[in-house]
């Protein structure tokens, strides 16, 4: 009984926190349906065109689907960019799993000389601001003749050390004795990795995928720097500049960016858990 009460209490707090976090986002759907004149009127003070304070109508007074019409019907580019984003994100996530999982596993389970240093290096490379890496990466990509090609964004992202770092954490929590026992039983390293490592590190993997997804779904700087041709751009670059007169349109784009993300959250989490469990069983 007491436990139940406590659970309710915890739920309430967390729900309050979640509500607080989501509250500003409530502006988005309303804004996407608000017509430009209304938007301009209520935001006039911010535009420097009026005294008093800006207000916000969560539900527009004169709702319009004009922005969505413009986005979904009048701009064929939208779909192209949308699928670009989907394609890029999918390729990156897949690549990161293929490349990053073994690396993370190696860091977590093998003791070799220079491991700590190398791992530290990975962390530092992860932390380096992109602004600094922009120039040298550009040089490398150009030498590889990948500049202005989707690979210029996808490949460096695949080898990002970020997912390694997160999945590593998941793997270190595996009890070393289990692995030893498996080795004694004559299991190969890959077998151990697939059969024991993957299922046990699944929370880490899941976290890595979710976080990577969030990062690459809204990737801005890399495509802007490495893709010249707008036809290859992801959706995140389609947003107009922060320009309040276009706010309604920007909000409409945001809605279209958010919906797939919600889908991924909703569907992805279960599917992922099952999938990882399945791989483990099959081997």
């Amino acid at each position, binding site marked *: 009984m007491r436990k139940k009460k406590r659970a309710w209490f915890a739920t309430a707090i967390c729900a309050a926190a979640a509500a607080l976090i989501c509250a500003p986002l409530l502006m988005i759907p309303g804004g996407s349906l608000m017509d430009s004149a209304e938007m301009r009127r209520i935001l006039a003070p911010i535009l420097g065109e009026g005294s008093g304070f800006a207000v916000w109508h969560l539900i527009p007074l004169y709702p319009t689907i004009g922005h969505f019409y413009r986005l979904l019907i009048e701009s064929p580019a939208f779909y192209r960019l949308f699928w670009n984003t989907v394609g890029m994100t999918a390729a990156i996530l897949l690549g990161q799993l293929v490349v990053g999982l073994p690396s993370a596993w190696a860091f977590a389970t093998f003791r070799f000389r220079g491991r700590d240093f190398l791992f530290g290096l990975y962390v530092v490379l992860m932390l380096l601001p992109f602004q600094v890496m*922009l120039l040298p990466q550009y040089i490398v990509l*150009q030498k590889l003749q990948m500049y202005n090609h989707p690979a210029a964004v996808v490949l460096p992202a695949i080898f990002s050390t970020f997912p390694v770092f997160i999945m590593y954490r998941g793997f270190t929590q595996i009890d070393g004795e289990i692995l030893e026992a498996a080795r004694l039983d004559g299991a190969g390293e890959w077998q151990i990795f697939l059969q024991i490592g993957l299922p046990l590190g699944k929370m880490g993997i899941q976290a890595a995928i979710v976080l990577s997804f969030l990062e690459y779904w809204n990737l801005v700087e890399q495509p802007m*720097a490495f893709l010249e041709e707008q036809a290859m*751009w992801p959706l995140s670059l389609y947003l*107009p*500049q922060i*320009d309040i007169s276009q706010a309604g349109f920007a909000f409409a784009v945001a809605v279209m960016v958010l919906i797939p993300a919600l889908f991924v959250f909703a569907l992805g989490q279960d599917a992922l858990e099952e999938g990882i469990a399945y791989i483990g069983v099959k081997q």
Partner: protein
Amino acid sequence: MMRGRKRKMLLCVAAITAVMCAALFGCGSKEEEIPMGRYADREVKLPPGTFSYMHSCPDGGYYLYGADANLTYVDAQGESREKNWSWENNANIRVKYEVGGSDSGAAVFSYTPKFWVDKEMEALWISGDTCYLYCYVDEAGKNYALEPHGEGYQKGTNLNIFAFSPEGDLYAASENHVYRINVESGETDSLFATSGQVKSIVFADGVMLAADREKAYFYDMAAGKLTDGSSALDEFIKNHSTGGLVMAVSDKDIQGKVMDGEAADTSDTDSADDTGNAQILYMACRTGVYRYIWGGSVIEQIADGQMTALGDTQREPIALQALDNGEFRVMFSGNTMVEMYYDETLPARPSRELTVYSLEEIGWIRYAGQLFQKEHPDVLVRYETGMDGDNAVSKEDALKNLNTRLLAGDVPDVIVMDNMDIEQYADKGVLKELDGILQPYLDDGILYRNIVEGMRMTDKEKVYSVPMMVYLPLWLGEEMYLDGEESLDAIVAGMELARQKHPEGPILYTLYPKDVLQQTMPVCLPAWTGEDGSLDVEKLTAYYRAVSRMWEIDCAGFDDAGREAWQKNNMEYYEPTDRNMADISFCYQYNAQQNFGETWLQLGFLMTPQVGMTGIHVEKANMAADWQPKELDDVVTYGTYAGQADNVYWAKTIVGLCEQGKETELAEEFFKLLLSDEMMRKWWLDKPRNQSGLTIRKDSLGDILDIDNIEFGQVMGFKDPTGINYPDFWPTEEEKQWLYQMMEDADCCYRPGTMLEECAMETGIRVLNGELTPEEGAGEVERKMAIAMEE
């Protein structure tokens, strides 16, 4: 064992490193021979009139139609004759829209009427839908009303594309359907649905091909059904329909002119071995001309858009004709047409590339690129812009990308430095000194020396970039407000005076605080930085004080509600998004529709030679017309003004050359082309209303202002025999001399987009809003500038 393993690992790492190094740094390049022969183009002189549609006839002639022009037939030899259509006799046409023509000269067009006969249609019209009526004109030029009806056609559905088959049947397309219409009875069959608006319809071998922006539909006219499409063609259409895609069918093959593998979109080998008499579909779009053999799966490129007029992003192709001699005619929006012909003497690919960069698209530069390419057939001019369109790329992002290229050694040859920190780039050795190239121009007095001199910078005191055009400050108002004395204080004093005389309403045309800043900052900003680049805080404080006073005076004429009402009235004409001062304009932009009579003093910039100068008169007339009493007309006058800096000019299209560019000689030639009389003058003859600025070439400026320049006079309407367009307003000799003198005097360069300006603007708005005192504002700017200087 451990050791062996380790060594293996080390070896592996070493091997990978070596391979990567080789891949990265050992890039061997092969020189290859460039084959000869490619398509080039020439402009076709169209008969008088404005045309928006072309129908090509199998004999090589074509029909031209336009909403305001009569049907004109041009035969294969280029002789034109006007067909006497009775369009104009139809009194009930308000606006004509789309046209479709046949080989015989019959045509169908859509229009909106002046009055509606059909009540049902009128109801639709009133509800806000634009719906068309249709008219069929037979070969003899006789008009018949065409009323589409039938199963599958809903009344009021707009038909936007019309095409006559070689047999003379009319096909038409709405937003999502294709129909066949009997021109006599109006009976309409719905043939098939499409996913979007069909853009072009062509016929071959009893098959109609209709293409929207995503797919090509093949319709067998005899069997009356859709046949298999071509996925290759669909793919092509999807990728190439941006900026217009036009089609034409011909049974004449132009084998051998296919561009070689790499340039073509697809290079499968099953190309035209057994084309025989097969029909060939030609398609033209921004990237070039392509051919597709009917029923095949290969699309080959035959002409490169970048090398021809097709690559021009300013216009869109609207019709294509494939001629028997292997040439093409392309009709463009904007009433232009080119013929593309195969020239054996030109190299198939340009062997050299000249890269021109600017932050934002500048029409004049693109125009120069095309001209340059014509003069140098072996050169491809790549014009790249850092930020275009409506996307998330900001100026900083664009500059970051440019700097990446510069640092990586991938340097453009010519940079247009508008909105960039020229001094920085000159200092870092990116820009080349232009003194040598400019010397002859200055010695011969071709350019305004003072304007070039105003661009000297860095410790070396050299010229690194030159504005091709300038704007000059100009005020308009009652003489007494601003007579002769030029300073910021004089403007304030003038406003005080005006306020005394006219206690109500605005004095300046300023809706918001930032307008006052925009109108005064260009003539003050150059005075704020000292020799060493440090900020003169006292001057900035004085500036903030003066503009605060100006805003106060301006606001004193209203109560809050009155001001808001005035702002609301003007909202329509006012661009709220522009925060970077790029678009202050003057006479021409603010035209008679505006409520200008309420302003007593206008500050702005003279942006175009003729329109601006004549605009002064138009504007004077407007101001006077709204003023009470009317006699003020004589008092309205104009002049240049100064703030804290004197003789300011606003530099536009500032061109610099790159020290590290790959084609330095070509770059120099391009630069000279920009400075040529042709470039400086022709542009205004083509586009007299654009606001590129006053040319820095003396003779060109004189030519543009010469009303005897017949071509120009026609374009402008000043020599129109009907005399509708204010011939009286053409600048007098005296006025021209005044302008030339102003050009001679301008020696203080104002360049928009500097960090100081952005900073002073942002803070200035807060000062005018009363959030900060002028002293605090100047202090804040000083602190930010200190950080910037220290960096």
